[in-house]
């Protein structure tokens, strides 16, 4: 028995423990888009005029800060939900002395989902890099949140400074994209798949109530600091829109409309059906590509400038 235990410890436990420790430490030390955005906000929050506070990939891929004529930063991450939008804004808003506008994208499923339910593995990114609270013990460790190969890839990208956003926190400009090329995907199938992924069964769930609370908290926070809030629903392609459930969509739109009408500092801009966007503007059926993002941001910028004149 002693021999078995000693060998198990020497051959299995010690090497694996050291390997795991090494990977966890490496994950915490290398750069990624989360650590970059946290650091940028820590250093530059006071200079910021417009903050794209969240909205997941719709904001991250769809709003280019460079287009605005005021200092703007894109603080969104892929799949980020309202609870994390609020936590990040809450962390930095006291330092954002010059902040005038907060932009928040609310999509078809935003009111009905939270990160811990859909992509909980991403929570460790917020815990490690933004020092936000963990939902579970394993959220404290990137090692347990991602697969081994994903962690190795994260370390490789960090060591080569290959982070996925540009200096303004925007996604596309770091990507090697041909601006004139059109993606060859099956748009009908993609629309169906993407819409199905966003459907929820329970519209009055606890998550919906919590997300409503988080959105109201964001608005209250902005109101206290004299900041205008622009809530957006970004453009989508018809193959996605056609597969949405009207009840779920209406509930989201009615809620955003009511929030805008109940708060003086809030505007709701619903562009989900905007026909100025053609198929060439989309990366997939519910995300804009860089051409679409620049077009969308220009419209957004003009609208905000007009209202805040």
């Amino acid at each position, binding site marked *: *028995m002693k021999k078995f235990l000693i060998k198990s410890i020497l051959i299995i436990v010690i*090497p*694996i423990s050291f390997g795991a420790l090494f990977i966890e430490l490496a994950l915490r030390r290398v750069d990624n888009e989360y650590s970059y955005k946290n650091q940028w906000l820590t250093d530059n929050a006071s200079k910021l005029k417009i903050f794209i506070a969240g909205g997941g990939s719709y904001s991250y891929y769809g709003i280019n800060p460079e287009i605005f004529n005021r200092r703007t930063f894109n603080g969104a991450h892929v799949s980020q939900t309202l609870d994390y939008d609020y936590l990040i804004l809450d962390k930095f808003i006291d330092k954002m002395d010059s902040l005038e506008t907060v932009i928040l994208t609310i999509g078809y499923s935003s009111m009905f989902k939270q990160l811990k339910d859909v992509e909980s593995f991403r929570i460790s990114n917020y815990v490690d890099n933004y020092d936000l609270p963990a939902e579970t013990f394993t959220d404290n460790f990137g090692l347990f949140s991602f697969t081994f*190969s994903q962690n190795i890839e994260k370390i490789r990208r960090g060591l080569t400074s290959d982070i996925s956003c540009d200096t303004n926190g925007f996604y596309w400009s770091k990507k090697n994209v041909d601006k004139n090329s059109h993606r060859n995907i099956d748009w009908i199938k993609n629309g169906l798949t993407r819409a199905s992924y966003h459907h929820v069964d329970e519209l009055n769930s606890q998550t919906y109530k919590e997300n409503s609370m988080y959105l109201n908290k964001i608005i209250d926070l902005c109101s206290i600091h004299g900041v205008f809030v622009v809530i957006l629903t970004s453009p989508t392609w018809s193959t996605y829109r056609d597969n949405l459930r009207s009840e779920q969509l209406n509930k989201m739109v009615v809620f955003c409309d009511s929030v805008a009408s109940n708060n003086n500092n809030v505007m709701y801009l619903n562009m989900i059906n905007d026909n100025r966007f053609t198929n060439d503007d989309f990366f997939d059926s519910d995300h804009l590509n860089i051409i679409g993002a620049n077009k969308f941001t220009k419209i957004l910028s003009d609208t905000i400038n007009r209202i805040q004149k």
Partner: protein
Amino acid sequence: MLFNSIEFAIFLPIVFLLYWFVFSKNGKLQNLLLILASVFFYCFADAKFFLLLVASAVFNYGFAWLIHKREDGSVKRLLFYAGMAFNIGLLLYFKYFNWFIDGFVRLFNVFGGDMSFTPFHILLPLGISFFTFQLIGYLIDVYNEEVEPTSNILAFAAYVTYFPKMLSGPIERIQHFIPQIERKRDFDYAFAVDGMRQILWGLFKKVVVANNLAPIVDRIFNEYQTMSGSTLLVGAIFYLIQLYADFSGYSDMACGVSKLFNIRIVNNFHFPFFSTNISDFWKNWHISLTTWMMDYVFTPLSFILRDYKKLGLIISIFATFLLIGIWHGANMTFIIFGLLQGIYFIPLIVKNKMNKSSDVVQGRFLPSFSDAVKMLWLFLLMSLTMVFGRVESLEVGFTYISGIASMGLFTKPAYFVYREYIILFTMIMFIVEWFQRNKEHGLDIHGVFKYQIINIGIYYILLFFILYFNSKDVQFIYLQF
């Protein structure tokens, strides 16, 4: 708690240390710990049906004694039938209730009736097919006086609940299991090390091969209507490999874990793809279920039908495989799957070759050409047949098969099936198992290499692959049964 989860990686060492250091004084204490650990294991997975498991164990324990003590044949038979009715009733209710009612309603409507049926929402208790079959076998053996009921309640409870085999088998026989746990177990170094190797090999098959084949197979089966014949054929082949790597990987892990407690459980697979006929294939595939069916269905039935000679054998084999099909689930697809297996046996029965084991692969470095052709043919046949085990309806199954038998078969398969490392790891699995085919499992390498450092190197390479190619949250296929 899956065998390839973090939770199990914490659970197992704790139980192991408690078993050998705290509860090691005598067999009773060891069994007590195994029962407690198994209860925790089961409840961690699904606590809802724990009481059902307890009720089933208590009922069968009591009935076995009642049957054993009765001298009067008719009362004894009545008790036996009552016990069987209880066990089969459980299975019928949880697995087949909706299917039977739905079938009845359809039949009623065929004859002019006008009935509708909304299926009941019945949750399937984890492992019910496995533990119920164990207990049915136990009652039959007690009734036939092949075993005496055990008086050791702790040993019996450990037999029913033993966590390595609880959720997906093997369907362990009491006469094999109880003698091992009625005595105190001492630590066996070589056995434990072999168990660790078997766990590692099972993990490799499950995590690296099966889990990485899963998304490709899922995609082909989900989008079968748009796939070419060649892609559908690749999908059928990949599914058979996935199923094998998944279930035999699970079984290797179960056996390996059990060896750490110095308890040997049946190895469910013994390199079935190296068989050259269907009979040998089934002797090496899901061994515990097949032997159970052979002992309790095929043998008695063929004895009853012995006067009909080959026809009797054919009827018996059809009945046996029909039951094997139905055991897998309440769907016509499984019935067709079972019937097809029966058809494949007919030539062997007609030629009197059913019980002749073809020891083709023994002692050769490579198979002969004719054996290789037979193995490949059998592999292809099983790949096509297993399609019915994967699809949700007969219509889809036949559409899938007819999709293969089209001109599209001669085109290049879809791009996404070419994930080189998947092909590579599948080949590694088959090559290793080919050379290890006379051993118990693929990583049974005790004494193979002169220097232990080579063994350790192999462990680390496999471990690296397991960690690197680990994809999250792919369930074991046989957990659904």
